[in-house]
């Protein structure tokens, strides 16, 4: 449907600072035409700043943005012609659904017959034909978000920007709309930059995802690459490695790195070329095996066990009180002492960050 495909959108050392606060620093990224990119990170990580810089709603304080050979960071938002979907929908409350969707076409002075045709197409795409003459205030949150998406794609923009579009919806609707957005992207092939703090959303939607922290890109890669090989402990924490154990490296060889603490001792995959010193061992809860008594195991006392259907999500503590999260189909209960083990290649050992690793956002942990 889009007639405005481009080869690549190039962000070169893009930065934005509010006074002394550097909200976004040196973001360099090349987005290929039709690609779906997710910017992922907790609030305040600079992902929305990056999106607003792309949209032209925030001026860059450094760097350039090129769309193929055209420099666009100096253009006003209305001159860029990108579609944007806002977190709070930002529908015009005084215009009907139809007029909301046709707003951009009208601003572009598209001839009337062409405008009606394209509005009809956009309405059909998001399945809102029966609501097209209502006011936005009469629609549910999910329907409003569909209108917002239709309004953004009616212009057939070269780039669609989405700023946490699903975060105001309830859990069930969020899943439905996520599938819908994926389907729209497959059908229309619109290049999309999608901002979210929900790693599940990012992993399921994106062709490539960009993990941000404090305005700095931490890792950029395909969902499997980021999920399976996080670049550092921070990204690991965001990708479901809920156990981030601060330990000391005692030896390193081709087999892996041996890490040690007063309560446990493990061998894991050396991710940072560690020879010794403080490290962080990242382990997913589902990679622990209860009852495993190999050489990569230790004892924990169960403190809390949550029933999750086929398995239990357990919070336990080691002898020094260190919290360990694991999942198990075994029926364990509070107070039980169990021995849990983990495969060496499922323990990722990173050099300890100079700053503390923030607790990952727990409602969206990939399990």
């Amino acid at each position: 449907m889009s007639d405005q495909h481009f080869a690549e959108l190039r962000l070169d050392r893009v930065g934005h600072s509010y006074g002394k606060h550097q909200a976004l620093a040196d973001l360099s990224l090349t987005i290929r035409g039709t690609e779906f990119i997710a910017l992922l990170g907790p609030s305040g990580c600079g992902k929305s700043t990056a999106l607003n810089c792309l949209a032209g709603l925030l001026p860059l304080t450094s760097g350039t943005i090129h769309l193929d050979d055209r420099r666009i960071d100096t253009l006003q938002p209305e001159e860029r012609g990108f579609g944007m979907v806002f977190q709070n929908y930002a529908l015009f409350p005084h215009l009907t659904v139809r007029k909301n969707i046709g707003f951009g076409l009208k601003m572009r002075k598209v001839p009337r017959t062409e405008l009606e045709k394209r509005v009809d197409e956009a309405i059909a795409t998001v399945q809102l034909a029966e609501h097209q003459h209502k006011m936005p205030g009469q629609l549910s949150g999910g329907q409003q978000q569909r209108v917002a998406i239709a309004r953004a794609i009616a212009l057939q923009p070269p780039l669609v920007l989405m700023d946490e579009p699903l975060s105001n919806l309830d859990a069930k609707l969020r899943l439905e709309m996520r599938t819908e957005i994926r389907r729209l992207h497959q059908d229309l092939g619109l290049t999309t930059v999608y901002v979210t703090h929900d790693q599940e959303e990012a992993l399921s939607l994106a062709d490539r995802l960009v993990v941000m922290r404090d305005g700095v890109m931490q890792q950029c890669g395909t969902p499997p690459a980021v999920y399976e090989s996080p670049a550092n402990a921070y990204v690991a924490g965001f990708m479901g490695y809920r156990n981030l154990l601060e330990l000391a490296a005692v030896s390193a060889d081709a087999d892996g790195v041996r890490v040690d603490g007063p309560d446990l001792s493990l061998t894991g995959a050396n991710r940072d070329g560690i020879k010794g010193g403080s490290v962080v061992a990242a382990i997913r809860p589902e990679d622990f095996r209860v009852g495993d008594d190999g050489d990569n195991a230790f004892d924990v006392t169960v403190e809390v066990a949550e029933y999750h259907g086929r398995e239990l999500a357990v919070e336990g503590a080691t002898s020094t009180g260190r919290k360990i999260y694991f999942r198990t189909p075994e029926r364990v209960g509070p107070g039980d002492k169990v021995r849990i083990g983990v495969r060496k290649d499922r323990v990722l050992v990173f050099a300890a960050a100079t700053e503390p690793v923030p607790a990952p956002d727990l409602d969206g942990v990939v399990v």
Partner: protein
Amino acid sequence: MSAAAATAAPTVPGRSLRHRLAERGIDRTLWLVVPATLFILALFVYPFLYGLQLSFTPQEGGGALANYREFFTDPYLRGMIWKTLRLGLPAAVLNVVVSVPIAYAMRGRFRGKRTITTLLVVPIALGTVLTAQGLLMYAGPTGWLNQVLMNLHLVDEPVALIHNYVGVFLSLVITGFPFAFLLTLSYISGIDPSLERAAATLGAGAWQRFSKVTLPLLMPGLTMTFILSFVLAFSVFPSAQLVGDPTGSTRVISIAAYEAAFQQFDYSMGSTIAMIMAAVMLVVIGLVLAWRSMFYRGATGGKG
């Protein structure tokens, strides 16, 4: 609201009656409106009705409508309606129209916003009399303004800015503008700023964002601001008396009502003029509200 139902006696009929009343919002909390109702009855409804009946009992006899007949047959009296409208309507329109661009420019957050707002609001605190006093000194024939103009040889004789229509008009703008501005600013702040951002990404330039998004959403608030500004300007009394020409071009309705009641001691005629004044205001308000009903009046998406 459910308090009455919850504490109701356990007997079924009593409970169900209370329950049904509570569902319609009738419960003990309704007593809270009593003081306000008494206040309105004592200070507004009763004086109004008293004045209304007074206006139909002329002191010189001649039937219930004698005063009204006199008012509308005397071109001098009748002309006062026009004189008052000629002051009140343009002043209200100007106040609203000037408020919009200033409030629009100040809709965002910026350093010093509070200082500017405070400065703009000072004239309200001063009151009409002090403003009139200032105008007399500043814009009078020997005031600073005329002295500067004459010394610069821009004019040969003092410009007549007080004791005429211009003086009253200036006074109405000085005291009315801050009021209109504050209202307009709060209406504009109530419009979700992401709407304009959305319009920008859809290709709307600065003027289109204002005219297609902000202005339509602001229109209901602006009509309300206009009505309140107009009512304030229409009942102009101190400035018409002090910086105006109260026997001539700015002999507004309120002055006539005052003179009838307290100089000629014809309370009946005074009431009649006051009733006519109220009727004229209601007609203008009715017209503006009818016009407003053509616009969208729902939520504007903001926090206001």
